[in-house]
């Protein structure tokens, strides 16, 4: 497979056509269509969007909320920025359709602090839509109101986690909540809330216009549709690529022009790190996390540098709330220093740190602490040569 541009196609369906079609359907039918498409959340966790909408739609409570997670903070990810820069109208249309589907009249875009230059773009799209009666009061003459506001974040990585994002939106310290309750039942200001990624919303108009079956056919198995990837690192053509879900990492690398590959980081710092022997593995929720970021490291790179850098990032970005993440990342980083200093020289000595990594994965409060040890496990077991000859490639 090679590139398949849908969300990033030059020719886009007319603005508002999907919304118009949606408003001619019942809200339940819109949810049904999205559910049938089997689209899964494009932020990385891959929760089925239709189920989320269905739960929020069915939840009791008024003033339901549609929140767009545009806090694109995973190192090496820039696909949402690209979508907003070029396809803001589709994002806003997707959010409006979500509002209609779940019975909400209020949308918020939580925008990454480092993206302030996108605000005028979104504002202009909003004004254009209002002028066309595609946003605001009595949209397309129907008894449906929906508007969208932009709220910039403040730079914390953890606020990409949906409950931290909600806390931050409420003006509080951005730290994850305990679940349950889930946002679909009690989210922003205790209201039923749908939080979806930019790319998820941007895909919705295409699903509505072309149908669930068409979307399913684009992907593989229950990983449907196309997916955007931000690829960077030691390649000739870094940038955003759109490929069918289930494409192999090799296909993506080929498209981006990768020549010398030692390792590939897939799904960001919290994703998986694979070797050049694993390029047949697929980008899907069943295999390599298709969150969005792909970073290529050539043979000149010392992966201990990479690992140290990632762990420094997590030590810096842990919110500090739960013990395993707050203390665990520090100890994993310490272990890296001990390896580098030669104070740890065998896999046996590393065993407690692998055990720590496992506890972090199953014992941390949110996705940050649950995935931050991945880089440690992957890089230390696959790429590092310890003096005792064990471990590493």
């Amino acid at each position, binding site marked *: 497979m090679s590139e398949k541009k849908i969300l990033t196609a030059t020719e886009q369906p007319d603005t508002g056509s999907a919304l118009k079609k949606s408003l001619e359907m019942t809200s339940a039918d819109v949810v049904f269509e999205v559910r049938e498409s089997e689209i899964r959340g494009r932020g990385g966790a891959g929760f089925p969007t239709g189920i989320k909408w269905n739960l929020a739609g069915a939840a009791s409570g008024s003033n339901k909320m549609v929140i767009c997670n545009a806090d694109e903070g995973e190192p090496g990810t820039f696909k949402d920025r690209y979508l907003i820069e070029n396809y803001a109208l589709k994002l806003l249309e997707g959010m409006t359709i979500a509002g209609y589907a779940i019975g909400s009249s209020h949308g918020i875009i939580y925008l990454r602090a480092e993206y302030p230059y996108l605000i005028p773009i979104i504002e202009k799209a909003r004004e254009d839509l209002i002028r066309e009666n595609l946003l605001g009061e009595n949209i397309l003459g129907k008894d449906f109101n929906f508007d969208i506001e932009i709220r910039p974040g403040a730079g914390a990585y953890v606020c990409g986690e949906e409950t931290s994002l909600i806390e931050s939106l409420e003006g509080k310290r951005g730290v994850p909540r305990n679940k*349950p309750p889930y946002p679909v039942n009690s989210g922003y200001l205790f209201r039923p809330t749908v939080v979806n990624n930019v790319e998820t919303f941007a895909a919705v108009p295409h699903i509505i216009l072309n149908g669930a079956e068409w979307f399913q056919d684009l992907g593989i198995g229950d990983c449907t549709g196309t997916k955007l990837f931000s690829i960077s690192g030691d390649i000739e053509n870094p940038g955003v690529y759109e490929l069918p879900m289930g494409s192999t990492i090799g296909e993506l690398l080929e498209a981006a022009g990768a020549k010398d590959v030692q390792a590939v980081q897939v799904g960001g710092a919290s994703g998986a790190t694979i070797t050049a022997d694993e390029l047949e593995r697929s980008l899907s929720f069943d295999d390599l996390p298709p969150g969005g970021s792909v970073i290529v490291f050539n043979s000149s790179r010392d992966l201990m540098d990479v690992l140290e850098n990632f762990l420094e990032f997590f030590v810096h970005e842990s919110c500090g*709330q739960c013990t395993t993440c707050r203390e665990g990342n520090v100890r994993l980083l310490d272990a890296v220093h001990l390896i580098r200093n030669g104070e740890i020289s065998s896999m046996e000595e590393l065993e407690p740190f692998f055990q720590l990594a496992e506890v972090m994965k*199953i*014992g941390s409060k949110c996705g940050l602490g649950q995935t931050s040890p991945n880089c440690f496990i992957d890089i230390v077991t696959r790429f590092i040569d310890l003096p005792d000859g064990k471990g590493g490639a």
Partner: protein
Amino acid sequence: MPNISVKINGTLTSVREGITILEACGTAGVEIPTLCYHPDLSLAGNCRMCLVEVEGWRTLAIACVTPVIPNMVVNTHSKKVRHARRTVLKLLLASHNVNCPECERNKNCELQELAEKHNITSNEYQTSPKPESIEEVSPGIMRDNSRCIMCTRCVRTCEELQSVAVIKPVGRSSSVTISTFMDRSLNDVPCTQCGQCVIRCPTGALFETSEVRPVWEAIENPDKFVVFQTAPAVRVGLAEALGLPIDRSTGQMVAAIRGMGVDRVLDTDFTADLTIIEEGHELISRLKSALVDGDESVALPMMTSCSPGWIKFIEHKYPELLSNVSTCKSPQQMFGALAKTYLAGKEGIDPAKIVSVSIMPCTAKKFEKERPEMRDSGYKDVDYVLTTRELARMIDEAGIDFEKITEEKFDRWMGDSTGAAVIFGATGGVMEAALRTAYEIVSGQEIPFDGLNIEPVRGMEGIKEAAITMPERMATGFEFLAGVTLKVAVAHGLANAKILMDKVRSGEADYHFIEIMACPGGCLGGGGQPIPTSPEIRQKRTESIYAEDAALHFRKSHANPEIQLLYAEFLKEPLGHKSHELLHTHYIKRD
């Protein structure tokens, strides 16, 4: 909620739907270790100590937060769970300033206890040095963040129970700390010094500012005449602080203090009775000015002034209501002012030689005694304040066997007290004591409650209300109160005080008299009391307090013979010249 069936460690159990795994395990007799969980507080779920395995779940579940669902299969001692618990403990210990023998909480520390229970004898995660002590001092409370495990119990206490919210997590990741606005000292924020955070801290990150050393030095100095006063709630907390079951231990307490070498063992209960006389007359006088003289400048409802945490709270948060607060000093400070005047005269001792020490269930009392207004005797009225816990440490250090000691009585002049005084230790107690006396002063009859027990103001309800209608026939001079219904309210815990104050400020409340205690449960739940605390523990202490009341010969403050003597010989009359000089005070607006 109906019952559902869950399987815990292989055993099917029927539990109420909607309860947490922790609660379900409790019913099933399965113990789950916890740290951030506290029965008085909201659920944080941040320590990860209570992780358990739920069949079919990708991650472990935290038992304290996760509700049980039908047919849930829970395992609390699988390999995964055991590893997780040990790892969490080791991570906490690795960044904890483990200087246990020097720690105030040694042998009464939840982290230490869990480490021992889980047999943590080595720590692979000690990959960098432990933090060093970083002490911060305020009059009542000290902090050492190097012992903090970020459970946030203190933060939740300050916000949820006390509506004070001066401490919060600041910063993130491993550099997160519990701190104040702009990292200020507790002295420079509206901290009430109530110490509720101290009694909920699982480790020694928060503790009282100790004065044990100067008190020993005073006792050991032959030139000093050391006078102790003991607050009502101390006698129902001391046994517990010494590791014994919760019970009242007044006689043993007196004997133990005397055994430590103290010159006079006297009772704050004596000045509690005195407070009732002064405050009761103040209330009647305010009512008269308002009802008879039509004086609109008289502030009603009148509010009690015994609780120094409450006083600091209102000074910070509701300064416009300060004229509503009774001008009576707290019993501790009345005692202090009398010890260096009246008692000095009675004992024939130079007041300059008197060292006045009070034993309090309270950390805010340490702040109160430092207030510049509290020097009306011509000296510092109270020199040192020790918490119940500090007294227990001194008794231990003195080698006194509290269980075997023979009960003794308080010394004379300021040692008599009544049941009305001892109930100052429980929420509603001051109100009940005041009503017992005030009603009788104005009507000439006993208050019409069975056994003088004014049940509507007792108990753990956060805000309690009562209305007492005065009889038609009143004592001479109080006819203006005939048939008047006196409306009163009682709140404990500053979050409840805030609710009442908002109503008073908006004019929504039409009470005549309000009792406020800063601490949940009243003084028996004070920040200087034994650790831990819980609703059950406070309930038991409350029962001890009322048992003490019922057992005392005199139940009404005005019946106290030594109080009668004090007025006859020294004060002359309630609200008189001498009273104003020594027993009344004023308050200040604080930012």
